C-alpha cells in the first residue's frame, strides 16, 4: 500500500503529513520542557535554602553549547545536500552531526560522574561541608568494605553481636549483605537457640532448626513458611470459634443488635490452645565473634546498644564511633547558616564565628580569615570602580553572598597557591574544570582532612537529586535533554546508515525524513540554548 502525502503536500494543509506530525510532537515537547522550566522557576522562588547559583563549571557547558549549535548547522547542511542530490556530502555532514551528539553525551557523562562522587554534609548549625569522602586509612591502606570496594559514603558502624530477624519482613538481599559482611570479618552468624514448634495440629513440639545452624535465606524462608502456615491455621481456628459463639449468642438474644451482645461473645482461649500451631514471629541469631558491620544511614535507626534495620531486623551490639571522614574537604559553605541567622535577626558574621566548624578546626578558621581578607579586597575594588552612593553612603556594588560566605575549591586552591603551593599547569587546570579538583596534585595542604563526629552530621548526600531541589531539577531537565540527544542521534544515524536504498529509489522521501529528524534535532538544540544559561550562568 502506498502511504499518501509523504512526498507531495496535502492540499488542505499544504504540507506533507510527517511535517504536521513532527510539529504536533514538538508542540507537546515544548509543553513538557516548559513544564519543567516553570518547575525550576517555582522551586527557585520558593527555595528555603540559598540557591546554589553559578555552581556548575562553565567550560564544559560552553563547549557542549558550541557542539550542539555546530551540529544544528551540520544537520541543515545534510538536509540541503540531499535536496541537491549530493549523497557523499550528506554522509559527511550527518556523520559530523552524530559525532557531535556523542561528544555531547561524553561530556555530560563526565559532569554527572563528578557529582556522583562528590559528597556534601550539612551540620546541625547549617554549615555545609563538601568534599571527597572515605574512611581513615588503616596502616596506610584504604579501608575496603566487604566487597573489596573503597567506602565513599557515610556509614553507621555497629559492633554486632546478635541479629534478630522478623520472619515475615526480612529482606533477602540484606540477609545476604549481612552474611557477606560477617564473612569479611571472619565471623559466623548462627542460630542462638533451637527453634521448636508445633507444626501439625495435635502433634508434639518438634525442632525446626537447631541452635548453631548457620544463617541463610533458605533457613529464614523455611521458618517463614512454618510461621505463615501456623498463622493462617490459627487464624482460621479463631474465626471459626468466634463465628460459633456469635451464632449461639444471636440465638440466645433474639431482637438484640450486635453491639448490645458483643461484650459477651468471647472465644475460650484455653480450649483452643491445644489445637494451635506455634507462630515464629522472630528468630534470633548470634554473631561470633562480634563483628564490625556498616550500614547506610537511611537503612538503620541506630541506638547505643540496639539498632533496627528497615526490615525490622534488630541488631544487638555497641554503636561504634562512626565519624564521616573527608579525605579532602574542598568547600565550606556558610550561606545557609548566614541565611538562618538573618531570619532569626542575628548578625551572620557573628553566627559564623560561633559555628562549630570554625571553633573546632583550625583549618576552617584559617580559611575563613583568608576569605574575609579576600572579600575585603574585593569590597575595596568595587568601591574604587563603582563608587559609593552619595545619598545612602552605601557602596553601589557589594560582594555577593556566595563570595562572602562560601569558600569553594577554587578559593582553597588559590589560598594554597598564595601560600606557596606549586601551581597547576594550563592543562591541569583545564582538566579540573571537567573532573573537579585534583586532590592528588594539590595535596592535603590545599584540601585538608576532616573527621566529622556523628552528632555533627545533620544531613549528608552526594550531589544527587537527594541533596536539594536544585540538583533535583538539574538532573531532571539535563537528563531528559540527554535522552532526547540520544534518541535524536539514533534516528539520524538510521538515515545515515540505512538511507542509501531509499535515496536511490525515492530521494525526495529521504530528504523529507531528514528534514523531520532535523526539526527534532533543532528543538533539542533550542532546549539547550535555554538550559545552558539557566543552569550554568544564573
Amino acid at each position, binding site marked *: 500500500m502506498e502511504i499518501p502525502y509523504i512526498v507531495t503536500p496535502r492540499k488542505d494543509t499544504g*504540507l506533507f503529513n510527517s511535517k504536521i506530525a513532527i510539529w504536533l510532537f514538538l508542540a507537546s515537547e515544548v509543553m513538557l520542557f516548559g513544564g519543567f522550566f516553570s518547575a525550576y522557576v517555582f522551586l527557585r*522562588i520558593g527555595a528555603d535554602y540559598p540557591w546554589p547559583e553559578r555552581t556548575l563549571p*562553565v567550560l564544559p557547558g560552553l563547549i557542549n553549547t558550541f557542539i550542539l*549549535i555546530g551540529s544544528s548547522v551540520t544537520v541543515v547542511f545534510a538536509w540541503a545536500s540531499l535536496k541537491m*542530490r549530493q549523497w557523499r556530502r550528506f554522509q559527511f555532514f550527518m556523520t559530523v552531526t552524530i559525532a557531535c551528539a556523542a561528544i555531547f553525551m561524553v561530556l555530560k557523562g563526565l559532569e554527572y560522574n563528578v557529582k556522583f562522587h562528590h559528597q556534601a554534609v550539612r551540620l546541625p548549625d547549617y554549615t555545609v561541608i563538601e568534599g571527597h569522602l572515605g574512611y581513615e586509612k588503616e596502616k596506610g591502606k584504604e579501608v575496603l568494605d566487604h566487597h573489596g570496594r573503597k567506602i565513599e559514603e557515610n556509614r553507621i558502624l555497629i559492633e554486632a553481636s546478635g541479629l534478630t530477624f522478623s520472619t515475615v519482613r526480612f529482606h533477602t538481599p540484606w540477609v545476604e549483605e549481612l552474611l557477606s559482611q560477617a564473612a569479611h570479618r571472619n565471623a559466623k552468624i548462627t542460630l542462638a537457640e533451637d527453634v521448636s514448634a508445633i507444626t501439625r495440629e495435635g502433634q508434639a513440639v518438634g525442632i525446626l532448626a537447631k541452635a548453631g545452624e548457620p544463617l541463610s535465606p533458605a533457613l529464614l524462608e523455611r521458618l517463614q513458611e512454618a510461621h505463615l502456615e501456623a498463622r493462617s491455621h490459627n487464624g482460621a481456628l479463631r474465626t471459626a470459634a468466634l463465628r460459633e459463639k456469635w451464632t449461639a449468642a444471636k440465638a440466645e438474644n433474639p431482637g438484640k443488635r450486635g453491639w448490645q451482645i458483643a461484650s459477651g461473645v468471647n472465644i475460650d482461649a484455653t480450649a483452643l490452645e491445644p489445637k494451635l500451631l506455634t507462630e515464629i514471629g522472630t528468630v534470633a541469631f548470634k554473631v561470633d565473634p562480634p563483628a564490625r558491620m556498616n550500614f547506610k544511614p537511611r537503612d538503620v535507626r541506630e541506638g547505643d546498644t540496639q539498632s533496627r534495620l528497615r526490615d525490622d531486623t534488630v541488631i544487638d551490639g555497641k554503636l561504634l564511633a562512626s565519624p564521616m571522614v573527608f579525605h579532602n574537604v574542598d568547600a565550606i559553605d556558610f550561606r545557609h547558616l*548566614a541565611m538562618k541567622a538573618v531570619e532569626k535577626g542575628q548578625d551572620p558574621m557573628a553566627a559564623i564565628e560561633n559555628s562549630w566548624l570554625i571553633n573546632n578546626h583550625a583549618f576552617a578558621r584559617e580559611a575563613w580569615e583568608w576569605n574575609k581578607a579576600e572579600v575585603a579586597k574585593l569590597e575595596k575594588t568595587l568601591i574604587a570602580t563603582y563608587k559609593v552612593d552619595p545619598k545612602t553612603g552605601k557602596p553601589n556594588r557589594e560582594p*555577593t553572598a556566595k563570595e562572602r560566605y562560601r569558600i569553594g575549591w577554587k578559593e582553597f586552591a588559590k589560598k594554597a597557591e598564595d601560600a606557596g603551593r606549586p601551581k597547576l599547569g594550563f592543562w591541569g587546570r583545564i582538566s579540573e574544570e571537567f573532573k573537579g579538583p585534583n586532590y592528588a596534585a594539590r595535596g592535603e595542604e590545599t584540601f585538608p582532612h576532616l573527621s566529622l563526629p556523628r552528632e555533627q552530621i545533620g544531613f549528608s548526600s552526594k550531589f544527587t537529586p537527594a541533596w536539594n531541589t536544585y540538583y533535583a531539577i538539574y538532573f531532571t531537565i539535563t537528563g531528559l535533554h540527554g535522552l532526547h540527544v540520544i534518541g535524536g542521534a539514533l534516528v539520524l544515524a538510521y538515515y545515515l546508515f540505512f538511507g542509501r536504498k531509499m535515496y536511490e529509489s525515492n530521494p525526495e522521501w529521504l530528504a523529507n525524513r531528514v528534514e523531520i529528524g532535523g526539526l527534532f534535532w*533543532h528543538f533539542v538544540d533550542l532546549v539547550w540554548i535555554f538550559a545552558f544559561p539557566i543552569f550554568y550562568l*544564573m
Partner: protein
Amino acid sequence: MAETPDAIRKSIRTYLFVGAVLFIGTVVTVMVATVPWLDVGNHGFDAWDAVLGLAIATTKASLVAAVFMHLNHEKKAVYWLFGSGIVFVTALFGLTALAKSDPIHDSRFYGKESVTPAPLASPTLR
C-alpha cells in the same frame, strides 16, 4: 520554503551566518555572566543578569526556530500547532507567579492575625 536546489544553494550562506551569530551569542552570554565590567545590575547574579541572559537565549532560540526550522516561511497549519503549544507554556509560567501570593506565608491563613508573617526566603542573600 526553500524547495528548489537553486534556492537551497542560496540559503546556505544564511545558515552559515546564523550559525556564526549563534556562536557569538553564546560567547556573549558567558561574557556578561563572568566578566566583571560587563556585569549588569548589581555585582554578581541578580534579576538584571537573568533578564539579559534570557533575552540573549530567546534571541538565539528565535533564530534557530526561524531559520533552521524554517518558521520564517512555513504554512499556516504549523503556526497554529506550534503557537498553541507556546500559548499553553506561557500560561503555565503565569501560574508560577501565583507562588508569590501563596497564602501559606500569610499568618491570617492560620487564623492568627497577631503573628507577623514569615518572610519569603530570598534566593540570594545580600
